């Protein structure tokens, strides 16, 4: 089922009486049957968006539609959604079985059927053996799967997950992430997955939505958003290591950084911010390129070498301080102290105006 948000706004009044626009005029359509990653830094309004969809918070402005139905004023218990909380919120006094059964009891599902569905769901998340344990007798990953089972057992129209992996260690994270993806595929349920971990969002989602200060920055398929960021924030938020940003100018269709020619463009003359992905540099073995630096540090991991370059600014601020990372082939055997000439792959370079808007 499709979820549509129109002009959705939630304003909190903070303790010092200031208005916090936690969700700010959000227009967003979440396509049916897809897994959407809602991504952004801490405090950007991800949980608030989720709670608005769930009905645990009431919007100040705007509407929410589930398919054709408007649910803007519907209380949470009527919306038919499943929600996995940031720290699971499993009922500590109930066993796994009772936790999963609880929504079915409230919905007055026939007892026999409810039992069967509980067991079926526990098996789906791989907890068939642990039905009689209490939450505190489970590992973080197992608790998280109970929370998913509890959310899914009532066959909700929508599944909402609020940073469900944030309490898990690295290995369990990877494992459960795959599992969520699998369960989502098997059930085909429309899912919103909140996280502030961009790598997690990119790997699990059909589409990602990047948010900042309550405003949607960009939505699209992960690779597409990565390759075509709409603004500097999105460009910097996606990708590790982070995209390199240079201050530069366009003069006569040429782009300069500290008087070095880095690339060419059709854009008119103006100051620019230049984003170049670390993997966007090519080492110019013929040393013709103008864009050359002395290497400060070299880190080699497997086939890749990361070159770290730091140039202090100088001459009364005429030249900017530059720091950047370039990932190159380890077989080039570059060492610290070497001078390297770089070319830049055009598709890995993005030009922004000084406000951070993409220049086209």
């Amino acid at each position, binding site marked *: 089922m499709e979820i549509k948000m129109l002009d959705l706004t939630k304003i909190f009044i903070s303790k010092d009486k200031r208005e916090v626009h936690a969700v700010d005029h959000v227009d967003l359509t979440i396509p049916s049957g897809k897994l959407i990653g809602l991504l952004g830094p801490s405090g950007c309004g991800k949980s608030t968006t989720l709670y608005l969809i*769930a009905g*645990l918070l009431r919007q100040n402005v705007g509407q929410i539609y589930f398919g054709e139905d408007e649910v803007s004023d519907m*209380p*949470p*218990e009527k919306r038919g*959604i*499943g*929600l996995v*909380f940031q*720290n699971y*919120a499993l*009922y*500590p*006094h109930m066993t796994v079985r009772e936790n999963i059964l*609880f*929504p079915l009891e*409230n*919905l007055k599902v026939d007892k026999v059927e409810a039992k069967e569905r509980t067991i079926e769901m526990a098996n789906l998340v791989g907890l068939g053996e642990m039905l009689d344990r209490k939450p505190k007798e489970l590992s973080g990953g197992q608790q998280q799967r109970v929370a998913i089972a*509890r*959310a899914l057992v*009532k066959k909700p129209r929508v599944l909402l997950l609020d940073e469900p992996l944030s309490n898990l260690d690295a290995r369990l994270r990877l494992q459960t992430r795959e599992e969520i993806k699998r369960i989502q595929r098997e059930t085909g349920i429309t899912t919103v997955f909140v996280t502030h971990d961009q790598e997690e969002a990119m790997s699990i989602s059909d589409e990602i939505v990047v948010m900042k200060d309550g405003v949607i920055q960009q939505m699209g398929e992960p690779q597409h958003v990565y390759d075509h960021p709409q603004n500097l924030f999105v460009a910097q938020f996606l990708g590790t290591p982070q995209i390199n940003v240079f201050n530069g100018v366009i003069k006569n269709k040429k782009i300069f950084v500290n008087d070095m020619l880095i690339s060419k463009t059709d854009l008119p003359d103006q100051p620019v911010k230049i984003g170049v992905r670390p993997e966007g540099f090519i080492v110019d073995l013929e040393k013709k390129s103008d864009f050359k630096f002395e290497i400060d540090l070299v880190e080699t991991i497997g086939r890749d070498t990361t070159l770290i370059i730091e140039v202090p600014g100088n001459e009364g601020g005429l030249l900017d301080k530059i720091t950047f990372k370039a990932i190159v082939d380890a077989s080039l055997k570059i060492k610290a102290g070497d001078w390297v000439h770089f070319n830049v792959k055009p598709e890995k370079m993005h030009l922004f105006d000084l406000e951070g808007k993409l220049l086209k």
Partner: protein
Amino acid sequence: MLILMIVFTFYPLINAFVISFYKDYLPLANDGAGSITGYTFANYSVILKNQLFWQSLKNTFVLALVSVPVSILISLFISVALKSIPKLKGFFQTVFFLPYVTNGIAVGMAFAVMFHRDYGLFNLILGWFNISPIDWIGGTASWWAQMGALMIFTIWESLAFKILVFTSGLQNIDKQYYDAAKIDHATKWTIFKRITVPLLSPLILYISITSMIGALKAYNSVIGLFGEKLGGQPYSMITIVAFVYKYRSDFSFQGFYSYAASAAIILFFITLIFSLIQTTVSKKRIHY
């Protein structure tokens, strides 16, 4: 520290235990050294044959077994209700807390006025519903009316502390459980029954044990409400502790002091048994 504990808690208990076996005890004889004529179990059989002792047992049990669960239920409901009106919380907390900081006997006297047959508030209110005035605490009051008045007073008096404990307990319950329950389609009543009460259960156990002990030791309330007479008719509302006091203050009669001690020891074991039952029963139902 340990020695102080032994001196102040175990010594009096053991002492009372020993006194309860004295024969013909006169505490003030021999210039205050006291006199006995031996040791006996007879003190227990004497009070067990005493009509008044059985009256005090009946009164105490009825009072404790009704007032404790009822006051726990009422205070739970009030605490949950207070939670949903945070603005009025301070005001109501004061209202419910006042009796706690006021002397029980003084409040009892105020209640005695309210229970007055002709001028009391309760009969006035009943009058609005065309119910003819009841003698709650006077000379013609039935046992039920007296017990009713004592019950109302006891419950009122014990609400304050319970509400205080429960409201702070409720504040410690993570709001996410309530959000989760809403998402799980639970009604308000289901949330109360299946989430709030179980999560408060350790506190409920604590409160039910302490208030059961308190109710079994009821005395101030009877004095406050009925005065020295201990009832509409003399001794009709006597409690175990009142029984102990009565015989203790009549110590110049041979052996009475030991009767008081025996009754106190019986009360001690009753209290112990109640607490043990509560703990064992709750082991199966308490969470955490």
